[in-house]
């Protein structure tokens, strides 16, 4: 393959108008208009639900960067959410409740943890990588349960949402909603920029064939480590938002079930698409909200739906959408 065809191929991947521009635009437009809809129909809970979706979508997009583009399935990603949340909680318990401090700390702690554990985790491959990330996730979980001064098993209530330079910006639910939206948009755009960059191509290359990438002269593990650290940092951002939205932190945020749910969200939406991760999160939480209104044991319905989705909707929701799109256009 010549350099020219390579460039053309990558350019054609850069922007497909309907798929890469229209769909994300639509998703973010709907998020932006949701508060208006909630206000018009007087359904205040929609605002909470929407905020929850965006908080978890931040983590899901970050996880998709790893899973979909790096081929690295992290089963401990809730640990990063927990680290970010506990950074907010512990700082607040110490009397520091400004986002100008707690946000950078939340992200930095998660990135540092990702860097230290990433060095160890990336020695392994495939299923072993899944399990070793689980191990580190469980370690943070058990550390959190032992933090008796900060609530231990029971978790820690945060006195008030973070201020921003002394200004009580996040106090109103609607303001918090739009801050979460900006965070999600920033996460999405940054990850999008990453995957189309040279860095992203190397990452995808090492997913397809690590040996070949190494032979061309790339230190594969270093690229994977950087991706892992970035993804962990966004996990911390998600944790910062989660702690502020619920005004409560608990070890349950970083349980392995939570990590599992994140993976399900990513796969449900469609792996390696980024906007799919957002769709998957939305679908998961909507299904949870809607089905749990129908029956207490809503998982009895949701479980088989997941199985059917795997058997019949390959490529997740994004796959369905694009097949539908192609069908509509002959």
């Amino acid at each position, binding site marked *: 393959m010549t350099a020219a065809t390579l460039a053309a191929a990558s350019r054609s991947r850069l922007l497909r108008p309907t798929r890469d521009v229209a769909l994300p635009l639509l998703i973010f437009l709907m998020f932006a208009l949701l508060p208006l809809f909630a206000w018009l129909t007087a359904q205040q809970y929609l605002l909470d639900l929407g905020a929850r979706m965006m908080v978890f979508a931040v983590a899901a997009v970050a996880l998709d960067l790893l*899973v979909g583009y790096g081929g690295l*399935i992290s089963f401990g990603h809730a640990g990063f959410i927990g680290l970010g949340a506990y950074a907010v909680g512990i700082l607040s318990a110490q009397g520091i409740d400004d986002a100008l401090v707690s946000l950078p700390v939340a992200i930095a702690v998660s990135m540092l943890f990702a860097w230290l554990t990433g060095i*160890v985790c990336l*020695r*392994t*491959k*495939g*299923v*072993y990588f899944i*399990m*070793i990330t*689980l*191990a*580190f996730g*469980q*370690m943070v979980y*058990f*550390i959190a*349960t*032992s933090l*008796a001064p900060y609530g231990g098993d029971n978790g820690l209530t945060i006195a008030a949402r973070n201020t921003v330079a002394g200004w009580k910006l996040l106090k109103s639910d609607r303001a918090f909603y739009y801050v979460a939206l900006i965070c999600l948009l920033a996460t999405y755009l940054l990850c999008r920029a990453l995957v189309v960059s040279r860095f992203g191509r190397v990452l995808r290359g090492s997913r397809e064939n690590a040996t070949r990438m190494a032979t061309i002269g790339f230190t594969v593990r270093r690229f994977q480590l950087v991706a892992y650290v970035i993804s962990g940092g966004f996990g911390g951002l998600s944790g910062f938002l989660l702690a502020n939205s619920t005004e409560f932190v608990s070890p349950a945020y970083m349980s*392995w*079930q939570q990590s*599992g749910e994140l*993976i*399900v969200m990513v*796969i*449900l939406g469609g*792996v390696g698409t980024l906007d799919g991760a957002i769709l998957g999160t939305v679908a998961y939480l909507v299904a949870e909200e809607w089905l749990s209104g129908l029956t207490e*044991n*809503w*998982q*009895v319905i*949701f*479980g*088989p*739906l*997941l*199985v059917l*989705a*795997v*058997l019949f909707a*390959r490529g997740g929701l994004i796959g369905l959408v694009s097949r539908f799109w192609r069908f509509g256009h002959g």
Partner: protein
Amino acid sequence: MSGTLFLVQVLNGLQLGVLLFLIAAGLTLVFGVMDFINLAHGVQYMLGAYLAVAFYGVVGNFLAALVLALVAALAFGLLLEFLVFRHLYGRDHLDQVIATFGIILFLNHAVRLIWGAAPLTLPVPDFFAGTVVLMGGLLYPVWRLVIIASGLAVALGLYVLVTYTRLGMLVRAGATNAPMVSALGVDIGRLFMFVFGFGTMLAGFAGIMIAPIISVEPGMGTNILILALVVIVIGGIGSIRGAFVAALLIGLVDTLGRSFSIDILRMVMGPSPARMAGPAIASMLIYVLMAIVLYIRPAGLFPARGR
């Protein structure tokens, strides 16, 4: 800590170890031979326990309930294989994860619908009820010894089956290189079904055997699944021998860690920080162990050859 207390905890550790082995053996075979991540293996353990309780309620005899529950567990496992798993062999690991996760959700809540959320109990069979006197006059429940003995017997049986029979040879060959076995004219679909059914039955057996000494409740299979995954990863995926060694190791480390972590920590720190850190460190111990093992041997202790 006295010698007798230590002995009791070693026995408890062994009991947890053989239980983990029963679950991990099926998991590692399914994983090794079919390259299939079956997260639903834990709920099959749970199902075994529930079926035992249900059949005991009908027939009132533990042995009969055991046999019926085993057969039912096997039948249900094969049904799942036929309906779902069969279509997922050769698919991406992620697809298998999400589908089996869906089955976990379904079964955990289906048993809640059928038997209620309250924990159920199963009486220990009369013949094995009661305790034996260990040295030093300490009493130990007989049933736990029965679990250890039956687990070791299954391990021995599996060893003979895998090492000395034609079927075992096919299983070993499948774990090393499944496409090659298929190319040599073996009906790999039937081999897969056999391995899968067998693994399911072992997990069900573990659930039935443990039911008399724990409360049978929804979700009991989820945490044990994570432990079993830790076991097969430490042991090396596809290796029965690895699963056996790792299961005993994890069982002992976890049990002894939980019993003695506070005492050990008190040698180096004050009593109150030791009480705080002890349980957390004990819970973490097996994950630390796994991280260290994988750091030194990235494919586990006994990697199946050719992977």
